Each structure stands twice: as C-alpha cells, then as structure tokens.
C-alpha cells in the first residue's frame, strides 16, 4: 500500500523528489573531514578540520556544516592552496514556521482547505499580505485572515528562502585561482569541551604501598559529534586568568595537596610550558559523551598515612574534632609515581576484610610537577580526634611579658644581637594556656601533626610560645607544628602557653 502511494507521489513530482533524495545523507555521514581536536582544561578546544572540497575557479561560496554548534565564529581561519578569502559569514537566521511565514510576505502560497464534514480538499493560491499577529491573505479579490474560522487549512510554501537555515551555518566566500578538488583546513575554537584527570588509587595500608591508575576524562557538550578525531589534550588552561581563590575559613581545613613542588621533568611531550597527552589512536567524540582513556599505571608507590589537625587561632572547640586523614607520597621517579600529574581528582580505595576495594575518600590535586611531595586529605578519621581547649586566658603585666622577652638577630657576618624590646604602656598583655586533647581509638599508635596558626596576625600584635609540653617545630612566623604520638587506644594531652599583645 505504501509503495503504491509512494509511486503515486513519484509520478506526480519526480524531479523534486529526485532532488530531495540526492541531498539526503546516510545517517552516519558527516561533512567533517580529517579532524584534529586539541582540548584544554578550561572548557576550551581547538578544532582543525581538513575537508576535501571542490572549488571552482573564481569566486566560490563554501558552506561548512557539522562544525561545533558552539563555534566561536570570530576565531575561524580557513587555509588552502590557491584560495583567498573574500568574506566569512555565520548565519543564524533559523528556519521555522514563523520565519517561513514572515519571509513569505508578498509571495504566493498554496492553501489546502479541508471540509470537516466530508474531508474533501480544495486548493487555492493566496498571496501573503502581512504576518503581524495573524496572517492576512489575499485570495483573488478577497482579503482573509488565515484560519480565522478555526477550520483546518494546510499551507504549502513553494520554496524556502536561501538564508534560512536549519542550524547556525558557517560559510566562507573565497576567490580561487583555479578549479579542482583540494584540501581546505578550517581551524576554530569552541567552548564546551574540556578534560581533567581522574586517578584511581588503591592503598594497601599494611604494606604502605599504593597502586595508582590515571585516566583522562574528556567531555563534549558542544552539540556536535567529532568523528574519528586525532585527539590531543593539553595540561593547562590557556588564555584565561586563574579563577579567583576564596579564603577557606573552615575549621581544621585540609592542608594544600602539594607540600613541596618537584623539579623533575616527566618523559612526556611538551609544547611551550604545557605537557601534552595525545590519545593513542583516533576516536569518535560523541555529543554529550564522557570519554576516558588511561594514561598512567603505577604500582607499589611508597605511601604512608598521617594525621593532621589545624587550629587557626588560639581558640577551643566545643567537642573533639576528627583529625584529617592524609596520604603522603611522592611523584618522583625514584620513590614515587614517576610522572607529572595533570590536575584532577584522586579517588582512594582500600580493601575491606573480604578483599573488596571500598571507597575511602577523594581529594583534588592541581597540575603537579614530577618529584613533588604530595599530601592528600582523604577525609577525617573516625577514631583519631583532637580537642583544643583554652584552659585560661589571663591578663599579665609588663614585667611578666618582659620575662619571656628575648630576641636574637643573626647578622650576615655571623654575629648576633640579643636584647629586649620596649612596648607602649597602653598595650595590654595576655597569657593563653592551651590544651590539645588527642585521642586514638585505633589498635595502633598514630602520629598526629597538630598545627597552631594565628601567631602572626598583623604587624602590631605579637604572639609567642613560652612553654610547651612537647617540642614544636616553627614552620613560619604564623605557624608551629607538634608531631604528637598517641598510643593505641590511648590519649595524650599536649599543653602550650602563649603570650600575646593586644
């Protein structure tokens, strides 16, 4: 039945349909040529598309369908042998019923009226006078509003105006010296493509070893599929300022991941300052796709677990707070992963009692040079807690302040100056006794790094550590750290006395 009907249509307007058939591409065909995609971390990709196109001698208008739907048209360049560019157009006047009707003003269209009672169709030609609000038609000598009576009327347009397009379309007008098919290379930038690294780390706590796999994760939200693309990833963000960093005021917030930046060069391809990660073979990057390809597989990296607690100012906590659980390892060749690490997320797994890997936390890492010392905060420990307590905060007199007043300056020639400093009598002096109660419910002893910062708030204030129950390490003017070993299923109180001016 259908083929008979089809045949009927064919016989009526064979030339028109033949033309349609010729234009219909097979479902998987794309107008893209040899595609190379370079993807940056900051939601930006450079697409290079070399197409074999027939160009006639003289002036040609060439359309480029199947470019990124998000193409930044101002970045387009077209290169090819023997052509000169006259102009470049990006048309986004889209074909729709209402645009079609607007462009038909003054033109003649066909109306097919259907009798609702009998189904009988009658055809007539009409001229579109206006399409403002409603469509006003002239039919012979009559003026009518389209479907004013609500009865069914089909409207058939003879043609589609040339500049109305199904999708935004890039076209380039070129002047060619000679005719013939030749490769033309289209290069442009598009947003909505990005990549990052995802690391899978399996930590063996008993052996203090970690296996790390690195995956490149790229995403395509451009609205366009790039077929059989030669893909390259660049570890870096280009042409954009670093996003503004907001200060983090959380209590006991994680320390930065890179503890000491490395100085080793990874054995990877580089352009300028960037490391390159080419995908091993051509691949199709579909629209709305997330694609992952392996780039790193390291086994047995020496890794230790540590605990950290950070107190930002000489204040206490209402209840014990879990210490940060930190994995310490290196990206060096000799003692670590042996590679530069592109920015991404490290997800850490540990095996449970039955040997199944379970997720135990994740941490972001920035672009990390090879040879760096890395400390990843994967979470807060259930069993290891610290409670800082302000035991007392009392005003002290100048005399007592002076008792702890000792400064020493080491001069470049090795000589030293020691002495005391004078203070304005209007200053008040305070003594703060801190206690840090550390508890460990694990069956092994743990070492917790307790950081106390806020010792150098500003130039006019002065805070000094005058007594402590364990030796501390002064990291900076603002920060000290104690390495406190807490016995298995035990607790330790660390005590310290600070004096400060206010």
């Amino acid at each position: 039945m259908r083929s008979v009907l089809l045949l009927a249509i064919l016989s009526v307007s064979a030339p028109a349909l033949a033309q349609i058939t010729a234009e219909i591409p097979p479902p998987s065909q794309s107008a893209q040529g040899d595609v190379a995609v370079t993807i940056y971390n900051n939601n930006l990709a450079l697409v290079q598309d070399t197409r074999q196109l027939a160009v006639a001698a003289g002036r040609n208008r060439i359309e480029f369908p199947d470019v990124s739907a998000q193409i930044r048209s101002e970045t387009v360049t077209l290169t090819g042998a023997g052509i000169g560019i006259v102009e470049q157009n990006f048309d986004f006047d889209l074909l729709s019923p209402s645009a079609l009707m607007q462009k038909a003003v003054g033109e003649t269209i066909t109306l097919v009226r259907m009798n609702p009672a009998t189904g009988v169709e009658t055809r007539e030609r009409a001229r579109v006078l206006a399409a403002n609000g409603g469509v006003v038609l002239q039919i012979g000598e009559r003026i009518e509003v389209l479907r004013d009576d609500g009865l069914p009327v089909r409207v058939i347009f003879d043609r589609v105006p040339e500049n109305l397009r199904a999708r935004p379309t890039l076209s380039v007008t070129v002047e060619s010296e000679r005719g013939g098919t030749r490769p033309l290379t289209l290069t442009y930038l598009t947003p909505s493509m990005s990549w990052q690294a995802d690391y899978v780390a399996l930590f063996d706590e008993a052996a203090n070893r970690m296996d790390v796999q690195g995956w490149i994760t790229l995403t395509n939200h451009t609205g366009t599929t790039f077929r059989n693309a030669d893909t390259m990833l660049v570890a870096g963000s280009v042409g954009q300022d670093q996003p503004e960093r907001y200060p983090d005021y959380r209590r006991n917030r994680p320390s930065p991941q890179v503890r000491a930046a490395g100085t080793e060069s990874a054995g990877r391809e580089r352009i300028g300052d960037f490391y390159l990660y080419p995908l091993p073979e051509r691949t199709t990057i579909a629209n709305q796709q997330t694609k992952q390809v392996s780039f790193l597989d390291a086994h047995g990296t020496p890794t230790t677990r540590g605990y950290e607690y950070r107190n930002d100012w000489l204040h206490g906590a209402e209840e014990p707070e879990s210490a940060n659980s930190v994995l310490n390892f290196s990206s060096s060749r000799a003692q670590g992963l042996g590679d530069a690490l592109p920015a991404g997320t490290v997800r850490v797994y540990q095996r449970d009692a039955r040997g199944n890997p379970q997720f135990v936390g994740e941490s972001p890492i920035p672009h990390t040079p090879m040879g760096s010392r890395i400390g990843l905060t994967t979470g807060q420990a259930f069993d290891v807690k610290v409670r800082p307590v302000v035991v007392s905060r009392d005003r002290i007199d100048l005399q007592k302040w002076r008792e702890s007043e000792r400064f020493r300056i080491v001069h470049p020639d090795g000589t030293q100056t020691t002495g005391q400093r004078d203070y304005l009598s209007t200053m008040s002096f305070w003594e703060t006794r801190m206690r840090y109660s550390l508890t460990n419910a694990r069956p092994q002893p743990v070492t917790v790094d307790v950081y106390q910062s806020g010792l150098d708030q500003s130039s006019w204030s002065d805070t000094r550590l005058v007594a402590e129950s364990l030796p501390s390490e002064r990291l900076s003017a603002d920060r000290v750290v104690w390495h406190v070993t807490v016995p298995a299923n035990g607790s330790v109180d660390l005590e310290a006395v600070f004096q400060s001016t206010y």
Partner: protein
Amino acid sequence: MRAAPVLLAAMSMLAAPPAAAQSVVTSPRPDSVAVTVYRNPERDPGERPNLDWLGGYALVSETRTVVVPAGESVVRFEGVASGAFAETAIVTGFPEGIIERNRDAELLSARTLLDRSLARRVHLRRTSLATGTVREQEAVIRSGAGGAVVLQTADGFESLRCTGVPETLVYDEVPEGLNARPTLSVRLRSSVATTATVTLSYLAAGFDWQANYVGTLSPNGRRLDLFAWLTLASMDQTSFPDANTQAVAGQPNRERQNWQAPDQSSLELRCWQQGRTDQIVAGMTGDVLNDLPQAIVVTGSRMRRPEFESLAQARPVMAEQENLGDLKLYRIPVPVTVAAHSQKQVALLRREGVEVRRVYRQTVTESEADEEPVPVQMALLTRNRASEGLGLPLPAGGVVIFAAGAPRPVMLGAGAMRDYAEGEEVEISFGPAIGIMSQLRRVSHENGITTYELVVTNDHRRRIDFEAELQFDNVQSRIRLEEREGRHIWRTRLPSTGRAVLRFTVSPS
C-alpha cells in the same frame, strides 16, 4: 512500477549502520552486585534523610559476564545506576585491556529524535476527522528542533501542526547514538573471541544511610537498653537485587560534584502567527513584540513508584562492623535487595544495660539574659567503653528514648548523636525537660562588673541533678564552680518542688 522497490532498497542501505568492523555487545544486567552506601556529608546527624533528594552516594561494584568477539568491539553496560558518576567508573577483567570507556548521555526524546533526523526522510501521517482516513506521505525534515518543524513534501514546504489537521511524524528508526538512559560502554580490541568476567564499579548519587537509635531507660534512670537500626535509602531508578550491602560511617572526603543531569529539554512545536479577529485586544494590534508564536509543549513527566520495602520487625540479622582505614564499615551479612526508590532497615547494634547518668543541663550564654524562663535540656551521659556496657564505634544518628516499666511505652524525648569513637565521653541529648526551667537575670552592672543570677525551678516531686555550663570568661562566684575543658560548670541538686539560685559576676576582659 519497478522504481519503488529499488528506491526503498536503496534507502534501507543508507539507513544501515556505517560499514565498520566494530561489533556491539550488550551486557543487560550484572550477575552479582555489591553496594556500599555513604552518608550525605552535609546532613546533620539528627536530620532524617530526605527521601525525595538523597544527598549521599554509593559505591556500586558489579560482576558481569561478557562474550567478547574477536576484533574491535564496543561493550555496552545496561542496568547501571541512573545516578552513576561516569568519571568514577573502573572496569577490570578484560584480558587484553580496553582502548577507552565512554558514557553517552544524549538521550532519546521527542526533541532529539527530531533534531537528529534533520535532512532525513520521515513519514507524515494525517488523519481526516471527517472520514477517519489515514494518509501517509514522505517528507524530509528541513528545520532543527529549536524553532520547530518545517517539512519538505512532494507538494512543497509545510509546517507541522499549524493546520488544524491531526498530523504527526513517523520515523523509520532511532538515530544512532540515542539511548533511553545515559549508557556506559567500553571500546576494546581482542585477538580472539572469549568470555570475560568483568568487574564494573562506580560511585552513584542518590543514596544515603543513617543510624537510628532506640533507647529504653530503666525506671531508676541508670540503665539504658540501646538498639540501633541501620536505615538505608535509594532514590535511584535501578534496583539491585540480592546485593552484598555495606554502609560506611566516618567522613570520607567527597568534592562538590558538578553532576550534570542529562539534557531532558522538551520539544516545543512553534507555529507562525496565529492571531484571529476574535483575539484582538485594544492596544495590541500590530504589536510585533507581543507576536509570540503559539507553542505546543510536548513533554514527559517522571512517574514515581513508592516501593517501600521495610523489615520493621526485629530479625536475627545484625550488621557486622569492621575497620576500613579511618572509616567504619558495616556489612549486612546476607544479600538484600536495594530497590529503586525505597528505604530498608536492618539491625545495626544492640547493647543491654548500658550504664548511664541522667542529667538535666543548660548552657547559659549572655544572650539569654533577661528573657523568659526556658526549659532545661535532658541528657544521658556515659562513656563509650566496655565497663559501661558499650565500647564500640557509634555512628551518628537520631535517638529516641523510651521509659521502661510503665504499662505502655512512654516516649521521653528525641535527639541526635554525632559519631563517637571508642573511649569517648558520650552525651545523648534528647530534648527539653517538662517542668524544669531556668532563667538568667542581670542583677547589676557596676564598674564594668556584671552580676548575674541564674534561677532554676523544679516542679517534680523528686530531687533533680542539674548542671549549668556558663559560657562566660572571668567568672567568679561564692558557690564553688567546677572547671571542665576551660568552662565553668555549676552542679547542683534541685530540691523537690523547689528552686536553686546561682549568683555570679563577670569581670571585663
């Protein structure tokens, strides 16, 4: 007469998938699955998981058997959690490894069907309302889905559904790459045909769990029978039957997710200007800006299927606890079904006769001064160790306290507990007391020294142990105050139907 079949044959050839050496294998479901549920890190322990939007997540580990053909192939994994985070996927077990893994999230919908059929041949079906005659004719879609449909037919160019005639598009096939759901797949190359047992694991959004404690307090208030449920919930669309199920307590770090919901924008069919003479409003005639094309919204609504599967009565099944790094893992010892859109409870722990001290307490701050009397808080204090009858990790959760000994159960109050490690002091607050009130008055303020009076009243016919924590610095009082963790504590015993008064001064710092 012969032209038609030839043309149809040519069309079906065109419609066939690209001539690639790549075969597609579909793995419809896992053979076995393990689910480990993690709590929503941003939920307060006392807050119940919101079943409509669960903010926790799960690690799903699936074992699948896949028949891998020789050569290059794509293995599609169906039946994975709908909330799977693609970037967390781990696939192991293919003997020769994989080339890449993908998640395709371009979904099949009215909109994508139209959009991807641009310049493709479809059928336009019209039904006559007068006679019921159905007519089908060929058409080619000439417009994208954004501005709606313009068709090329043998007659010329037409719109869809602007005519008043019932008409619709009929498609021959689903364009390649459109899926009902986001689909995980791997591309691989194998030298021989083989059967592989592979493990697919990933993190998925839309899960949560919580401990729910039920405590029964002995009549003398010194012993507590403590029982806890492990309540886990899923709002995923996929059910995991007979899953090895675990829950993890502790605080694993999870970065804020940029989880992108798959694009589910609906198709809007826009027509041309449809104004009619009866719709003319004064002042609007000819106003092009108000000339909005008529829109017909074709959209789908998600069906909700509340499928609660509860194990409310006590069962001998009890979760088993083990250490997992710095976290606590609770394993449900028998396989259970983690059903889509459901909540499930199993016993988490049980301890009888825990030694507790029942106290009434109040935290006193300056902001309460000269306000009306407020009820004091009830709490149970104990220490999490074996000598008190505890000595096990206590994951955070809600607490309900009942009184034993009455002819019928009496609920005393409800509250919440944070995570308690072994050995910690445990405090279970369970709500305001009835009839025991405290009030702070500012008596005087001289030479920078403020004098306060704290009055606590008791309407019970028994004496009550009370303690107040004074959140003030430089406190002095004639009554001896205890010091605990840098705070001043006033402990007293309220007389039967009587009151107690504390007068204290605060000097400036």
